């Protein structure tokens, strides 16, 4: 019987089809190919929902679709699909956000009279298709290929307004910075192949399983550089992590993301919520069975995540543009996901990935709506008082902001609290690194609450501070619709996994996400990961007590931040309080001089090395090649002179040659002996 999962490839192929249609025929279609994209993503969404329910019912799918390189004694390189709870959940998120972004684009791009729409919708289609292909990839190499495609699409879309100065440069930066991380990822892929002879995520020769068996001494794998298995796995894990850090915009490769705001706002929503940035974290979750085996890698992931969460949140505090604030909040939130994964909270991080996708897509689309209303002015200091003029946007945006700040009962509270809770208990279990990461994450909660509500108050509250804010441009259903859908989701998705409520009140069975991720392949479910986690748990005042303390503290920090924003900015005529920060303000405005020091590394360190290498290349490598050719040229110039054109000379040379040959043969053959 053909189950619904046999249609899974169509989920990826439909947006790809819309890419082809928009590219080939978008010019002749109404709305510049938008309808094809909406149709395709809607189809994918419906199929994803069906897949999701099939997976909930216990079905899974792990098939090789196409072998594109095979060898007799070599590794087969394949494309395949792996549908398990994690990927089916991600499919729903990606297709839903992509669908809403397509609809929103009708309002943001078509209604605003943008040109080049077929190119835009083709980019969106390919972007969605690449991300979906990445999500369902059943091996690391295929994941890498789609990972790169995602990067390419982000490049194309960020640089959509290629006639201006900023976007092409931002697009190049995004591409190059993520590529830098991807080099490590590529080496990691090769290392995985060399070590395990397989890069499958699931199945009998899944590399996480092989790694686990190797560590238990059941069989041996190839290790390199004379390392033991544990050390080598750590190296491989860190190599792959390079790609994750680049794509998920973690410190120190986060610098591309704020610049990527140059792209059209719906693209930002897609990049930040469902595709591209999510790809990095998803990759760690996908091969979590491998990462849990190496405590060092986990600790590094947790530290990077906690630090990035705090670091980015502080920069978000001073920004003037609404999209810049959101950009730094994205970096910060992905830091939380990394923190959750590094701290052994697989379900918590996945949960945060899901809730963040909804509320961040909502916030970006809300910002897009505000930007339409403000005639493409993004400066929050020119806004103010928009809440009465655009109530739908306001309430949806407020819902997203409450979720982002982590205020109960909105989605972000549950997921962020669970991330922090997992970090806390594993930190208390005897891991000071996790406690440090927890402290950074907790402090970031305060900043998150502050910058989120600073943004809300500056944009929607107070008196209008410019002419456009007094008389904003209206938005239509195609903007309000997606906002309403996401607004409801941002408010409610947290309810699928109310672990604190379960722990505090002893209500069994309301941690639906935990149960969901426990299903399917025994090597890929949350239960298996929980057994492998190298941390032990510690509690303050029992499990329920720790839950209560953790939730209360993080909620308190979030409310504190929001309250501070309320005091400072929720007034009719807010003023810039950032001057009180003094020199810190300059540092924050310049993003801790991250860009400057990276440019310095490029010009001050890499360039001199490149010059030396260039000398070596030009002098020695090219010198040998040029030397050989000039010797040949010189010798040829001399030897060619025997070609006189006189037949008699040739005849004489032939005769001489024959004589010499006879003499030689005779001497060697002993005729004259």
């Amino acid at each position, binding site marked *: 019987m053909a189950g619904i999962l046999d249609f899974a490839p169509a989920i990826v192929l439909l947006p790809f089809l819309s890419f082809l249609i928009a590219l080939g025929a978008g010019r002749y279609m109404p709305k510049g190919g938008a309808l094809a994209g909406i149709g395709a993503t809607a189809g994918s969404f419906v199929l994803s929902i069906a897949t999701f329910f099939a997976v909930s019912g216990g079905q899974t799918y792990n098939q090789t679709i196409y072998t594109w390189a095979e060898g007799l004694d070599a590794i087969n390189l394949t494309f395949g699909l792996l549908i398990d709870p994690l990927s089916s959940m991600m499919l729903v998120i990606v297709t839903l956000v992509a669908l809403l972004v397509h609809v929103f684009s009708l309002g943001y791009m078509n209604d605003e009279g943008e040109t080049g729409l077929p190119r835009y919708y083709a980019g969106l289609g390919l972007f969605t298709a690449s991300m979906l292909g990445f999500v369902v990839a059943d091996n690391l190499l295929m994941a890498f290929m789609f990972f790169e495609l995602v990067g390419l699409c982000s490049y194309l879309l960020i640089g959509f307004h290629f006639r201006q100065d900023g976007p092409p440069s931002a697009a190049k930066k995004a591409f190059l910075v993520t590529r830098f991380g991807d080099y490590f990822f590529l080496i990691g892929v090769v290392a995985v192949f060399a070590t395990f002879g397989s890069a499958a995520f699931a199945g009998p020769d899944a590399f996480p399983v092989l790694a686990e068996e190797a560590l238990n001494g059941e069989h041996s794998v190839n290790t390199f550089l004379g390392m033991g298995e544990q050390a080598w796995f750590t190296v491989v894990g860190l190599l792959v992590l390079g790609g994750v850090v680049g794509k998920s915009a973690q410190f120190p490769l986060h610098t591309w993301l704020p610049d990527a705001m140059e792209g059209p706002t719906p693209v930002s929503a897609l990049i930040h919520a469902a595709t591209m940035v999510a790809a990095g974290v998803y990759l760690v979750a996908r091969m979590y069975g491998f990462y849990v085996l190496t405590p060092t890698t986990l600790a590094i992931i947790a530290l990077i995540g906690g630090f990035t969460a705090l670091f980015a949140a502080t920069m978000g505090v001073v920004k003037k543009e609404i999209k810049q604030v959101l950009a730094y909040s994205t970096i910060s939130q992905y830091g939380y996901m990394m923190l959750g994964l590094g701290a052994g909270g697989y379900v918590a991080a996945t949960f945060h990935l899901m809730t963040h996708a909804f509320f961040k897509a909502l916030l970006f689309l809300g910002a897009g709506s505000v930007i339409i209303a403000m005639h493409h002015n993004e400066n929050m200091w020119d806004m103010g008082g928009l809440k009465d003029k655009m109530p739908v946007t306001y309430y949806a945006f407020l819902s997203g902001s409450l979720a982002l700040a982590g205020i109960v009962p909105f989605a972000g509270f549950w997921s962020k609290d669970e991330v922090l809770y997992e970090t806390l208990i594993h930190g208390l279990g005897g891991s000071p690194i996790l406690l440090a990461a927890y402290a950074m994450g907790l402090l970031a909660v305060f900043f998150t609450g502050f910058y989120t509500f600073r943004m809300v108050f500056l944009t929607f509250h107070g008196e209008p501070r410019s002419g456009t804010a007094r008389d904003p441009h209206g938005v239509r259903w195609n903007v309000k619709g997606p906002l309403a859908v996401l607004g409801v989701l941002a408010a409610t998705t947290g309810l699928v996994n109310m672990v604190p409520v379960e722990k505090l009140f002893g209500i069994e069975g309301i941690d639906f996400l935990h149960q969901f991720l426990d299903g399917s392949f025994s090597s890929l479910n949350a239960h298996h990961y929980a057994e492998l986690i190298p941390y032990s748990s510690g509690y303050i005042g029992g499990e329920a007590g720790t839950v209560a303390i953790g939730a209360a503290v993080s909620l308190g920090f979030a409310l504190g931040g929001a309250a501070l924003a309320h005091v400072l900015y929720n007034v009719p005529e807010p003023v810039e309080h950032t001057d009180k920060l003094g020199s810190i303000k300059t540092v924050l405005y310049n993003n801790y001089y991250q860009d400057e020091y990276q440019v310095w590394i490029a010009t001050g360190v890499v360039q001199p090395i490149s010059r030396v290498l260039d000398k070596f290349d030009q002098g020695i490598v090219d010198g040998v090649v040029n030397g050989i050719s000039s010797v040949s040229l010189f010798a040829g110039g001399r030897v060619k002179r025997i070609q*006189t054109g*006189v*037949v*008699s000379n040739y005849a004489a040379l032939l005769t001489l040659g024959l004589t010499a040959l006879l003499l030689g043969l005779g001497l060697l053959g002993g005729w004259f002996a």
Partner: protein
Amino acid sequence: MVPPQYYLLLSAAVFCIGIFGLLTRRNALLFLMSVELMLNAANINLVAFSYYWGNVTGQTFTLFTLALAAAEVAVGLGIILVLYRNFDGVDVTNATTMRW
């Protein structure tokens, strides 16, 4: 029966005459004749050894070589005609346009 050495000596002499002509003459027709002499020196060898071993294969082969020689002369004469037309003579040392 004449010993084969005599045939071989005759053949070597004819071959050397051919080579001598090839090296000393400038007339293309004489070139062609010298080449024919060298070819026939080889033919003499073939016939001589065929006779010595009592096997007619060599003699049969010589017949074919003769036919081939005739064809070669036809081609050679054609070339000489063209040479004459282009260089106003059959002196091979004048035709030196195909050089480096």
